């Protein structure tokens, strides 16, 4: 096994571990923390294996926007019973997650000096050019999906007629 499959194996093990802890944790707040780390690790994997554009989009969308959405819903519904700064489980979860990310990052830096493996060139610009080539269809699909999502969310939050 060369160093490159070792890097992918370490990242994969970390992704699976964080996802399993996120899904089978009893507290929703701990689940949210580990889901954040899982999305972040997947973005790192995309970036390291040659597509920084998709990796960046993954991190911005799931680790950023969707995590904030989850946090808002958890706070609105009061499901979390968050005890930030006081709960030992929350602190342990956050610490464990940071350790996992640190170990993976350290391994990646040691394996490739922080750069993508040489056999996987960065294809971000080619991907962007390919998307740009088909931008009318891509935009049509995205606008349709986002418009449908916005209409649905607005409809769900609208008041029912009394």
């Amino acid at each position, binding site marked *: *096994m060369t160093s*490159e*499959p070792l890097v*992918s*194996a370490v990242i*994969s093990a970390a*992704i*699976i571990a964080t*996802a*399993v802890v*996120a*899904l*089978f944790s009893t507290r*929703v707040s701990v*689940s*949210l923390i580990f*889901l954040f780390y*899982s*999305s972040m690790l*997947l973005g790192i*994997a*995309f970036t390291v*294996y040659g*597509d920084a*554009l*998709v990796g960046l*989009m*993954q991190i911005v*969308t*799931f680790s950023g*926007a*969707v995590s904030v*959405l*989850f946090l808002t*819903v*958890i706070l*609105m*519904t009061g*499901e979390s019973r968050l005890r930030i700064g006081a709960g030992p489980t929350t602190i342990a979860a956050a610490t464990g997650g940071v350790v996992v990310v640190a170990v993976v990052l350290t391994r990646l830096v040691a394996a490739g000096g922080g750069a993508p493996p040489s056999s*996987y*060139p960065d*294809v971000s610009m*080619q*991907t962007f*050019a*390919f*998307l740009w*080539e*088909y931008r009318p269809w*891509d935009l049509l*699909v*995205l606008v349709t*999906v*986002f418009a*449908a*999502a916005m209409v*649905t*969310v607005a409809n*769900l*939050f609208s008041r029912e007629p009394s």
Partner: protein
Amino acid sequence: MITDQTVFLFTGVVLAFVGMASISSSRNLIKTVMAFQVVLLGANLALFASGLDAPLQSGLGTRLTTDSFVFLSILVGAAVEAVGLAVVVTLYRKYGTLDPSEIRKLRH
């Protein structure tokens, strides 16, 4: 021979199965949406891995195609999750609980 593609495909399948198991056993709708996100992560990883060793030029079946599909899948998945979370909030406001079985009982 084990390659990066094999490892990532295996990881994607594991994530999808773990997510589906959690969806079927979850007693909380927020956890269900989180499990959906894990399934989506697994699908994106498998899609990304399927094009990892493909040629670079544009056209169907190449790496740029799979990466573009991953790009599209990320954005569509985020929109679907936003709708799912809005449904969760609406159900909580209407029934006061996030347990699917409780909601089913309260409907009748």
